[in-house]
Protein backbone atom coordinates (compact mmCIF):
# COMPACT_ATOMS: atom_id res chain seq x y z
CA UNK A 1 0.00 0.00 0.00
CA UNK A 2 1.40 3.37 -1.05
CA UNK A 3 2.00 5.97 1.65
CA UNK A 4 -0.58 8.77 1.67
CA UNK A 5 -0.66 11.67 4.10
CA UNK A 6 -1.99 15.12 4.79
CA UNK A 7 -1.56 17.92 7.34
CA UNK A 8 -3.92 20.71 8.29
CA UNK A 9 -3.66 23.83 10.46
CA UNK A 10 -6.49 24.46 12.91
CA UNK A 11 -7.32 27.75 14.62
CA UNK A 12 -9.64 27.96 17.61
CA UNK A 13 -13.14 29.23 16.69
CA UNK A 14 -13.25 29.74 19.71
CA UNK A 15 -12.34 26.14 20.55
CA UNK A 16 -10.14 23.69 18.74
CA UNK A 17 -12.09 21.21 16.67
CA UNK A 18 -10.23 18.87 14.39
CA UNK A 19 -12.23 19.26 11.21
CA UNK A 20 -11.33 18.43 7.65
CA UNK A 21 -13.21 18.33 4.40
CA UNK A 22 -13.97 14.80 3.35
CA UNK A 23 -16.04 12.90 0.84
CA UNK A 24 -18.32 9.93 1.43
CA UNK A 25 -19.99 7.52 -0.94
CA UNK A 26 -21.84 4.28 -1.24
CA UNK A 27 -19.54 1.30 -0.68
CA UNK A 28 -17.12 0.77 -3.51
CA UNK A 29 -14.21 -1.59 -3.96
CA UNK A 30 -11.30 0.30 -5.61
CA UNK A 31 -9.77 -3.02 -6.59
CA UNK A 32 -12.95 -4.38 -8.15
CA UNK A 33 -14.62 -3.90 -11.51
CA UNK A 34 -17.53 -1.73 -10.38
CA UNK A 35 -17.80 1.92 -11.38
CA UNK A 36 -16.90 4.41 -8.70
CA UNK A 37 -20.09 5.94 -7.28
CA UNK A 38 -20.30 9.73 -6.90
CA UNK A 39 -19.20 11.08 -3.55
CA UNK A 40 -20.78 13.88 -1.58
CA UNK A 41 -18.90 16.41 0.56
CA UNK A 42 -19.04 16.32 4.34
CA UNK A 43 -17.21 17.75 7.32
CA UNK A 44 -15.09 15.16 9.11
CA UNK A 45 -14.60 15.67 12.84
CA UNK A 46 -11.68 13.64 14.12
CA UNK A 47 -12.85 12.17 17.40
CA UNK A 48 -10.68 9.89 19.49
CA UNK A 49 -13.65 9.48 21.86
CA UNK A 50 -15.61 7.62 19.20
CA UNK A 51 -14.88 3.92 18.84
CA UNK A 52 -16.47 3.85 15.38
CA UNK A 53 -17.06 6.25 12.52
CA UNK A 54 -20.50 7.85 12.50
CA UNK A 55 -22.42 9.48 9.64
CA UNK A 56 -25.05 11.98 10.60
CA UNK A 57 -28.48 10.58 9.74
CA UNK A 58 -28.98 13.26 7.09
CA UNK A 59 -25.99 11.85 5.20
CA UNK A 60 -27.23 8.27 5.47
CA UNK A 61 -30.47 9.41 3.83
CA UNK A 62 -28.70 11.53 1.23
CA UNK A 63 -26.54 8.58 0.14
CA UNK A 64 -29.40 6.10 0.31
CA UNK A 65 -27.38 3.67 2.39
CA UNK A 66 -29.08 0.43 3.42
CA UNK A 67 -28.38 -1.07 6.83
CA UNK A 68 -26.49 -4.34 7.13
CA UNK A 69 -27.07 -4.64 10.89
CA UNK A 70 -28.33 -2.85 13.98
CA UNK A 71 -26.60 -2.16 17.30
CA UNK A 72 -26.82 -0.33 20.61
CA UNK A 73 -24.69 2.74 21.24
CA UNK A 74 -23.83 4.53 24.46
CA UNK A 75 -23.82 8.30 24.06
CA UNK A 76 -23.84 11.26 26.39
CA UNK A 77 -27.64 11.06 26.23
CA UNK A 78 -27.82 7.39 27.16
CA UNK A 79 -28.20 4.16 25.25
CA UNK A 80 -29.93 4.15 21.88
CA UNK A 81 -30.37 1.97 18.81
CA UNK A 82 -28.47 2.68 15.63
CA UNK A 83 -28.10 1.19 12.20
CA UNK A 84 -24.84 -0.23 10.86
CA UNK A 85 -23.93 0.42 7.24
CA UNK A 86 -20.98 -0.09 4.90
CA UNK A 87 -19.62 2.94 3.05
CA UNK A 88 -16.48 4.64 1.73
CA UNK A 89 -14.73 7.68 3.23
CA UNK A 90 -12.38 9.87 1.17
CA UNK A 91 -9.80 11.98 3.02
CA UNK A 92 -7.31 14.59 1.87
CA UNK A 93 -4.13 13.23 0.35
CA UNK A 94 -6.09 10.82 -1.85
CA UNK A 95 -6.71 8.56 1.11
CA UNK A 96 -9.53 6.10 0.49
CA UNK A 97 -11.04 4.22 3.40
CA UNK A 98 -13.11 1.65 1.60
CA UNK A 99 -15.90 -0.62 2.78
CA UNK A 100 -15.83 0.45 6.39
CA UNK A 101 -18.56 -0.08 8.97
CA UNK A 102 -20.54 3.09 9.62
CA UNK A 103 -22.93 3.86 12.47
CA UNK A 104 -25.78 6.32 12.08
CA UNK A 105 -26.49 9.01 14.64
CA UNK A 106 -27.03 12.67 15.32
CA UNK A 107 -23.62 14.32 15.14
CA UNK A 108 -23.54 17.41 17.31
CA UNK A 109 -21.77 20.67 16.59
CA UNK A 110 -21.61 23.19 13.79
CA UNK A 111 -24.37 25.18 12.18
CA UNK A 112 -23.66 24.83 8.50
CA UNK A 113 -25.67 22.68 6.17
CA UNK A 114 -22.90 20.28 5.25
CA UNK A 115 -23.40 17.00 7.03
CA UNK A 116 -21.04 15.90 9.76
CA UNK A 117 -19.06 12.69 10.08
CA UNK A 118 -17.33 11.60 13.25
CA UNK A 119 -14.06 10.02 12.19
CA UNK A 120 -13.59 7.46 14.91
CA UNK A 121 -10.81 5.28 16.17
CA UNK A 122 -11.59 2.61 13.59
CA UNK A 123 -10.21 4.95 10.89
CA UNK A 124 -7.64 6.76 13.05
CA UNK A 125 -6.06 3.46 14.08
CA UNK A 126 -5.45 2.51 10.45
CA UNK A 127 -2.56 4.97 10.31
CA UNK A 128 -0.56 7.52 12.29
CA UNK A 129 -2.29 10.56 13.79
CA UNK A 130 -0.16 13.46 14.93
CA UNK A 131 -1.18 16.62 16.77
CA UNK A 132 0.91 19.63 17.85
CA UNK A 133 0.35 23.29 18.77
CA UNK A 134 2.89 26.03 18.12
CA UNK A 135 3.45 29.08 20.41
CA UNK A 136 1.11 31.14 18.18
CA UNK A 137 -1.76 28.83 19.05
CA UNK A 138 -1.97 27.15 15.69
CA UNK A 139 -2.69 23.48 15.94
CA UNK A 140 -1.43 21.18 13.25
CA UNK A 141 -2.74 17.73 12.72
CA UNK A 142 -1.45 15.17 10.33
CA UNK A 143 -2.55 11.75 9.28
CA UNK A 144 -0.65 9.19 7.27
CA UNK A 145 -1.56 5.74 6.11
CA UNK A 146 -0.36 3.05 6.31
CA UNK A 147 1.35 3.38 9.66
CA UNK A 148 5.08 4.12 9.50
CA UNK A 149 5.63 3.19 13.14
CA UNK A 150 5.58 5.18 16.33
CA UNK A 151 8.31 7.64 15.45
CA UNK A 152 7.60 10.98 13.80
CA UNK A 153 10.50 13.11 12.61
CA UNK A 154 11.69 15.71 15.15
CA UNK A 155 9.73 14.24 18.02
CA UNK A 156 11.31 12.87 21.18
CA UNK A 157 10.97 9.15 21.69
CA UNK A 158 8.22 7.87 23.92
CA UNK A 159 9.19 8.15 27.60
CA UNK A 160 7.41 7.19 30.81
CA UNK A 161 4.57 9.52 31.75
CA UNK A 162 5.58 12.30 34.14
CA UNK A 163 2.32 13.88 35.21
CA UNK A 164 2.43 16.91 37.50
CA UNK A 165 0.57 16.10 40.68
CA UNK A 166 -1.56 18.87 42.18
CA UNK A 167 -2.17 19.02 45.91
CA UNK A 168 -5.70 18.59 47.14
CA UNK A 169 -7.88 21.51 48.26
CA UNK A 170 -6.65 23.43 51.30
CA UNK A 171 -8.70 23.14 54.46
Amino acid at each position, binding site marked *: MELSAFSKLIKPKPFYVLESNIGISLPWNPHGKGERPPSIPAIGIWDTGATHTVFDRSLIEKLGLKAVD*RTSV*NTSKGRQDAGIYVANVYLSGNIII*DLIRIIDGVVLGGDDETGKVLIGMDIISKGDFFLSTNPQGQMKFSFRIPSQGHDFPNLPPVSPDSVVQFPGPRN
Partner: protein
Amino acid sequence: MIEALLDFYKEKQVEIARDHQGEFVLIHSSKIIGFYPGVREAYLDAVEERNFEPGHFLIRQCVLPEDEVPLTFYSRLG
Protein backbone atom coordinates in the same frame (compact mmCIF):
# COMPACT_ATOMS: atom_id res chain seq x y z
CA MET B 1 -36.29 -6.74 6.34
CA ILE B 2 -33.31 -6.31 8.68
CA GLU B 3 -35.48 -7.13 11.71
CA ALA B 4 -36.48 -10.52 10.25
CA LEU B 5 -32.83 -11.34 9.57
CA LEU B 6 -31.90 -10.28 13.10
CA ASP B 7 -34.60 -12.55 14.53
CA PHE B 8 -33.14 -15.44 12.54
CA TYR B 9 -29.65 -14.60 13.82
CA LYS B 10 -30.81 -14.43 17.42
CA GLU B 11 -32.37 -17.88 17.17
CA LYS B 12 -29.03 -19.30 16.07
CA GLN B 13 -26.75 -16.90 17.94
CA VAL B 14 -25.41 -19.25 20.61
CA GLU B 15 -24.74 -22.04 18.17
CA ILE B 16 -23.09 -19.68 15.65
CA ALA B 17 -21.01 -17.79 18.19
CA ARG B 18 -19.77 -20.96 19.84
CA ASP B 19 -18.19 -22.14 16.59
CA HIS B 20 -17.32 -18.79 14.95
CA GLN B 21 -16.53 -16.39 17.78
CA GLY B 22 -15.34 -13.03 16.42
CA GLU B 23 -16.02 -13.84 12.76
CA PHE B 24 -18.67 -12.06 10.69
CA VAL B 25 -21.67 -14.01 9.49
CA LEU B 26 -23.59 -13.21 6.30
CA ILE B 27 -27.29 -14.07 6.42
CA HIS B 28 -29.70 -13.80 3.48
CA SER B 29 -33.24 -15.17 3.08
CA SER B 30 -33.07 -16.93 6.45
CA LYS B 31 -29.94 -18.79 5.40
CA ILE B 32 -26.41 -18.58 6.70
CA ILE B 33 -24.33 -17.87 3.62
CA GLY B 34 -20.88 -17.91 5.20
CA PHE B 35 -18.40 -16.68 7.79
CA TYR B 36 -15.73 -14.05 7.12
CA PRO B 37 -12.81 -12.40 8.92
CA GLY B 38 -14.25 -8.90 8.46
CA VAL B 39 -17.17 -6.79 7.25
CA ARG B 40 -15.30 -5.98 4.05
CA GLU B 41 -15.00 -9.62 2.97
CA ALA B 42 -18.61 -10.35 3.88
CA TYR B 43 -19.92 -7.31 2.01
CA LEU B 44 -17.89 -8.06 -1.13
CA ASP B 45 -19.11 -11.65 -1.18
CA ALA B 46 -22.71 -10.51 -0.73
CA VAL B 47 -22.71 -7.80 -3.37
CA GLU B 48 -20.01 -8.66 -5.89
CA GLU B 49 -20.13 -12.46 -5.88
CA ARG B 50 -23.75 -13.21 -5.00
CA ASN B 51 -25.48 -10.06 -6.27
CA PHE B 52 -27.49 -9.65 -3.08
CA GLU B 53 -29.33 -6.37 -2.98
CA PRO B 54 -28.19 -3.97 -0.23
CA GLY B 55 -30.79 -3.90 2.53
CA HIS B 56 -31.65 -7.57 2.00
CA PHE B 57 -28.84 -9.19 3.95
CA LEU B 58 -27.36 -9.06 7.44
CA ILE B 59 -23.67 -8.91 8.36
CA ARG B 60 -23.05 -9.39 12.06
CA GLN B 61 -20.06 -10.19 14.22
CA CYS B 62 -20.57 -13.48 16.02
CA VAL B 63 -20.47 -13.07 19.79
CA LEU B 64 -22.31 -14.84 22.58
CA PRO B 65 -25.25 -12.85 23.98
CA GLU B 66 -23.45 -12.28 27.27
CA ASP B 67 -20.43 -10.84 25.44
CA GLU B 68 -22.37 -8.23 23.45
CA VAL B 69 -21.34 -4.69 24.35
CA PRO B 70 -22.78 -1.42 23.06
CA LEU B 71 -20.55 0.85 20.99
CA THR B 72 -19.41 3.87 22.98
CA PHE B 73 -19.18 7.56 22.07
CA TYR B 74 -17.84 9.90 24.72
CA SER B 75 -18.52 13.05 22.77
CA ARG B 76 -20.49 14.74 20.03
CA LEU B 77 -23.08 12.04 19.45
CA GLY B 78 -26.55 13.08 20.56
